[in-house]
């Protein structure tokens, strides 16, 4: 045998496939990764500290900037935390609107995430372009209802900022017509393709016990075969009235994560259809008329969590009775899902490492905060 020498490579922070400014300190033996240390913090924006000098409402647009793919889901988590603290009732209609927006977010996140994942595998943007096309449609809807495409800032304590505009429902129904075709197409591109199977099957296996030990959540955890979804485990909002299935994987590799994401898009579409059917009967307006914008929660702390497309997003707030949070902590799913990266990559090739990182579906804005 020839003597081989280990080589240390810095993948990032300026690297095309690290999904932002993220550094992986990789030790490679030939093409095999023998060690990997994720290094983050390059995008630290002092989010939590800023939140402590803002009033509760002023933090709402900052939560958009956490995971900028899923602004609506972030808003929901934060709004729920403050509502729980102050005890604001959310009208039924507002809850339906919230669920509608969050499930649309889930579709757009998965469409984008799968596209980026295939890009990491080396495809030349096509799958990403298809995903982005559907994402654009959803963003158009978000824009018409909230005024912005990404930084929606749509949720308020006690409801949502405004009701649906008149042209929203017809466009949404058109979108739902296109959605099965899009998901089927994505599945045809991803599921049977021999090259993708080679690149994803058996790659980046995260065993069930290890996933639980790292407290991973979201599609990564479900891909490892744990049927844990906060929408079912601790039903919030109106999820206990909606029918949907939880897809889980069996092996815990990249392929399982792809399959779980594809199926979650289908389930989200199912939820949206139920919401459209039930929305006209929902009571109340889009916002609780008694809800004040300037809240002063009683002294105490609260933790509220939701199932965002990336996993469990939780907000832990401590109030000292003033109009500003005393402590504001984000449990960011991307951050926690990223921690087992070293264990997932060890023993695979350099090319797999990039794919595994892509399959976790991180957004650095949320990881570094």
């Amino acid at each position, binding site marked *: 045998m020839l003597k081989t020498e280990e*080589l240390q*490579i810095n993948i990032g922070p300026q*690297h*095309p*496939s690290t999904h932002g400014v993220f550094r992986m300190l990789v030790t490679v033996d030939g*093409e095999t990764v*023998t*060690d990997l240390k994720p290094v983050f913090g390059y995008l630290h924006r002092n989010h939590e500290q800023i939140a402590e000098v803002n009033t509760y409402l002023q933090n709402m647009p900052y939560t958009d900037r956490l995971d900028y793919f899923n602004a609506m889901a972030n808003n929901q988590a934060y709004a729920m935390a403050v509502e729980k603290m102050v005890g604001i009732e959310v009208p039924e209609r507002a809850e339906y609107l919230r669920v509608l927006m969050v499930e649309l977010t889930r579709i757009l996140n998965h469409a984008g995430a799968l596209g980026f994942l*295939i*890009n*990491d*595998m*080396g*495809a*030349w*943007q*096509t799958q990403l*372009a*298809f995903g982005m*096309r559907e994402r654009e449609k959803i963003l158009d809807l978000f824009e018409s209802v909230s005024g912005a495409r990404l930084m929606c800032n749509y949720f308020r304590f006690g409801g949502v900022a405004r009701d649906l505009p008149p042209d929203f429902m017809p466009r949404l129904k058109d979108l739902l017509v296109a959605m099965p075709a899009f998901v089927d197409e994505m599945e045809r*591109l991803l599921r049977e*393709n021999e*090259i*993708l199977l*080679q*690149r994803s*099957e*058996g*790659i980046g*296996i995260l065993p069930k016990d290890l996933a639980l030990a790292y407290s991973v959540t979201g599609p990564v955890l479900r891909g490892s075969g744990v049927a844990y979804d906060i929408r079912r485990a601790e039903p919030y909002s109106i999820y206990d009235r909606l029918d949907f299935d939880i897809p889980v994987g069996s092996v815990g590799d990249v392929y399982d994560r792809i399959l779980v994401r594809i199926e979650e898009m289908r389930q989200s579409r199912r939820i949206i259809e139920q919401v459209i059917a039930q929305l006209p009967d929902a009571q109340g307006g889009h916002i609780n008329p008694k809800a004040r914008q300037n809240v002063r929660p009683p002294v105490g702390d609260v933790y509220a969590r939701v199932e965002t497309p990336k996993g469990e997003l939780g907000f832990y707030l401590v109030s000292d009775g003033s109009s500003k949070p005393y402590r504001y902590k984000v449990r960011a799913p991307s951050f926690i899902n990223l921690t087992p990266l070293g*264990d997932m990559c*060890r*023993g*695979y*090739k*350099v*090319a*797999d*490492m*990039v794919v595994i990182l892509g399959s976790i579906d991180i957004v650095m804005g949320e990881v570094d905060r």
Partner: protein
Amino acid sequence: MQDVVNQVINTSFGWGWPSWAIALIGYLIVAAILFGIAPFQMLFLTLYERRAIARMQDRIGPNRVGPEGAFQPLADGVKIFTKEDIVPAAADQWVHFIAPCVVVAPTMFMFAVLPWGPGMVPVDMNLGLLFFFAISSVSAVGLMMAGWASSNKFALVGAMRAVAQMVSYEIPAVLSLLAIVMVTGSLSIVELINYQGGLFISTRDVASVPDWGLGWFIFSPVGFLAFIAFFIAALAEGERTPFDIPEADSEIVAGYMTEYSGMKFGLFYLAQYVLNFLLCAITSIIFFGGWQGPGVGWLYAQAITPANLQGDWIFNVLAGVLGVFYFLLKTYGFFFVMVWIRGAYARLRIDQLMDFGWKFLIPLTLVNIFSAAIWVGLTKWGAADGLAFVEGWSPLMRWAVAFAVTLILNLGAYLFLARIFAQSQDERTRQDDEVLEQLTNVA
């Protein structure tokens, strides 16, 4: 070209120059034309690729510079010319400088044996095919030089990958061509094209077939399998998706080109796109008859050729135009397929690429060579060669039997190898699990 020069200088002007001077002038003119055409191909192909792949992605593509973006490559060229040329301080200056030249030069050489139309070949070498592939592998040296001289880890990894890939995919490419060479019995590219007259069946196999210029090798099982294998190998040679591993941007930034900028970077791109054009061209020549197509053969028969000195020059022009048209149509068609594949697939991993090349493509091409032998025996051999039972069959019958036998053989081999290969991949996956377990336990 030399006969034209000879005609002009010695016959029209009556200067009586020696033949070496005539040959020199003729080759210089041809070389000048080719050096003009090669970068033009690159410019055109970049635009073509961008527009085509944009359509596949429901976009429009570059359409701002000039009508329908026609001058976009020129704008890119101006930009790349005016960019600063950065050489890393730690780089080996001279090797870093020479590497792009070493990569570009072979691709230019390869034009020397490429026939564009009937009678339009710079040099009709009787070893043309061998020359083409021998020269094409020289650029691997340039890639290695580039990667090594850059003194960058990504560049080094990229160069290693590039060389490994090029060297391993030369083998299936040449093996698949070997089957065709066995059928034609010649390594001359011109002879290869001439063999492909006919209609679905080559006139050389069955003389009674009308010559529509459609007796391409792709219509025989041997040729079809060789085409598949060769085209896959060509994708790897030309570093196209799914084999663009040496410059996998999501892994190793830009591979061996990482530390290059300005026109040196442009030269790598030039070499790559010219190589892609040449690979598409050679695919269309070997398997799709090159300039062969309905009408070209008939037109060329009326033209002035060494065989027919009483022809009309207008038929030379017509046959040339139609031939070049067919040739470029097929070539750009193959480039579209390359773009199409790039639009549809992800990239393989380097070890999977090696697996695929050595464990699947090479056995497949070996089986194909066996099929080619059967084909040659059934269609050409007689009692003298030991195949007495085919003597009574008509040429069409012999062709049909050869077709059926080779089809069954090739299809069976393909399905068998696909299954074997898939199983071997599964086993490899499980091995990786064990490696992971070991490594996790150690750590």
